[in-house]
């Protein structure tokens, strides 16, 4: 494993809360770890378990789903649906031998730019401690 292993995290952010929070973090110039890559979806409820599995299959070191706080969903209850799926997905991932820390669901509202930093930095730190999930060979190129 290389000295400074930079995990790559695929993040699915909902268009109305977490994606805006990330934008807010930007406009407030809050600095955080450059390890996430955001995929915008309209609602955390749109995140199909296949997306998560696919990301891991293609070598993501972590997957982060960001949605509105319970009760605040722009589509009333999409985030609850997401929550239910995530629970199932967690079990599946555990069976696949993927550590808990690599997969997270977070509620981040449009006002919580700072929370984006906190969550991402924390996740990166934890995953860095775990080390790369896929053979290090693949990493060199990045």
């Amino acid at each position: 494993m290389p000295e400074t292993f930079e995990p790559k995290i695929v993040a699915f952010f909902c268009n109305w809360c977490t994606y805006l929070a990330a934008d807010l973090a930007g406009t407030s110039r809050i600095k955080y770890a450059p390890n996430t890559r955001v995929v915008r979806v309209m609602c955390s409820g749109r995140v199909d378990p296949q997306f998560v599995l696919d990301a891991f299959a293609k070598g993501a070191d972590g997957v982060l789903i960001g949605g509105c706080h319970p009760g605040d969903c722009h589509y009333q209850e999409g985030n609850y649906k997401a929550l239910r799926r995530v629970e199932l997905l967690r079990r599946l991932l555990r069976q696949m031998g993927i550590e808990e820390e690599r997969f997270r669901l977070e509620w981040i509202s449009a006002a919580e730019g700072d929370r984006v930093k906190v969550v991402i930095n924390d996740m990166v730190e934890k995953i860095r401690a775990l080390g790369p999930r896929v053979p290090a060979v693949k990493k060199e190129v990045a």
Partner: protein
Amino acid sequence: MSESNGTIRVGVYVCHCGTNIAAVVDVKSLAEYGASLPNVAVSRNYKYLCSDPGQDLIRQDIAEHKLNRIVVTACSPHLHEHTFRTAAAAAGLNPFFVQMVNIREHSSWVHEDKKAATAKARDLLRAAVKRVARHEPLEKVSIPIHPAVLVVGGGIAGIHAALTLANAGKKVYLVEREPTIGGHMAKFDKTFPTLDCAACILTPKMSAVKNHPNITLWTYSEVVEVAGYVGTYNVKVKRWPRYVSEDLCAGCLECLEACVYKEGKFPDDFNVGLAKRKPIYIPFPQAVPQVPVIDPDTCIQFKSGKCKKTCIDACGDRHAISFQLEEKTEQIEVGTIIMATGFQTFDARRVPYYGYGVYPNVYTALEIERLVNASGPTGGEVVLRDGSTPKTVGIVHCVGSRDENTNRWCSRVCCMYSLKLAHLIKEHTGADVFNFYIDIRTPGKGFEEFYQKLLNEHVHFVRGRVAEVTDWALDPSEEGKLVLRVEDTLAGLVRRIPVDMVVLSTGLEPHADAPDVRRLFNITCSDGGFFLERHPKLAPVNTFTDGIFLAGCCQGPKDIPDTVAQAGAAAAEALALIDAGYIETEPNTAYVNEEVCSGCKTCVPMCPYGAIAFLDPEKKARINQAMCKGCGTCVAACPSGSIRQHLFEDEQIFEEIEGILTYA
């Protein structure tokens, strides 16, 4: 599908955004990298892509290089997606062949390590190029706008918005929680910096609202349910009973005189508890509507049923008063909504060291507003609780503002209203007035001049945040007084200043129930709980929910001029929609591929809008495109993968994931 036929030719455009992006992300190499990606025909970088020449650049390339996909690597899609889609459309390309890559908010602004930021930008660009290849031409859906408007809140913001719309000939429903409209402004005596009388400005507008044929005014009412979407909102309004019929009452107010209570006995909210009212009352003489309210919690008839009901006798054969009246619910349909729900003042009890509620002569600014008001409880006399006139007064700024322990924001109006009160108190009592401030903020037309005027009126200005208000005397001269301990940071020494009256300039904060209101209307909040505007500069009165606009202090602390201006703006935004007659929305709806649908009905309960119908003969699900809001929950839920979503097709997202993770 003509444009997507044949070879895919992508144009990549990397924006410098001046130095916003270029200073951190290596835009040149990023553009070169773009050129190296599959399907990319052109890849450029440019200083300001959103500018006219920038957009021209894209338009020309579409024509010259036969581009059929555009990837703009710049800022957040929330900011300029629309701009670039329009540009593409102008060049004859379907606007949905454009994909934004957000390397400003999500990279250059949040990362310091240039290499890492550039690497991130590359990944995101690669993902977008792969994704855009899968895009398909779509048509915008346009939804008709119902011409009626709902205005929530009858303060100066709501009043102004309602009148503006009504004067433009639009139907307006104005809903106010209190028994009268007027809001906080109705409580003020004078307004800064011109010191013109608040009532003289407000009350004519209030009666204009009452008399306007296009305005339906519902006071003592509350919005309890909001269904639907931009264009047609179905709103339920609960109307509490006043026990005095608005239709029958002539506003003679004889019932008030007649009440068995000869004197007011219960704290009067309008006078923030400084006066007493009867169980049947009218908030203030110029209230609109001029219809009394009976408060069932204090009215003898309601409590015991054994009242002489002198009020009913007084009303005589008008029969306006009826204890049987019940609350009713009105159902209305509107196309747009203006939120003007206002603010509440900070509760000074939250800062015990200022002694509010402990020492009787510590007042809040709002209480003083009532005291100086000619139509207030003391008829404009500024007196202490014991009726005597204060000889020295201390005004404490920033109470519940700029404080990490309470509210961290600046409430914007306190400096100026404190100056105003200082002037009025001096005028009414000739007292020696001290202002204790952290910074004096007078950034408005005529504000600084007003500050200068106060300085010349020999009002004391002590720069320092008061540490505490106590009644303990360290010196005989302090006996029986309230003592403020403060560092005079400019003189550079600690001072103890004995005063007769302390005024706490409490800040503005969102209503306690703002979170519930927010959920009810499905709009978002900013840090601190004020309602969040779509963009501070590009869309200051829009929310993230189409057709709902913000006016006044529910969006953040504001003075009256700014509030009125914003209310006008909100009204204009609503008018723009109404007069256009329709709004175009994202065609990001879900649809069913009926060949594949197994008819398992999993999706049906998933949809919060009941947009999914199950067709019995065919045993297939079908999605009503008009009702679908495009959340995509059903898409993710469908076991057979037969439900798909425009703009967020599975393939597109898989490509994006692949693009992010494949190390080219």
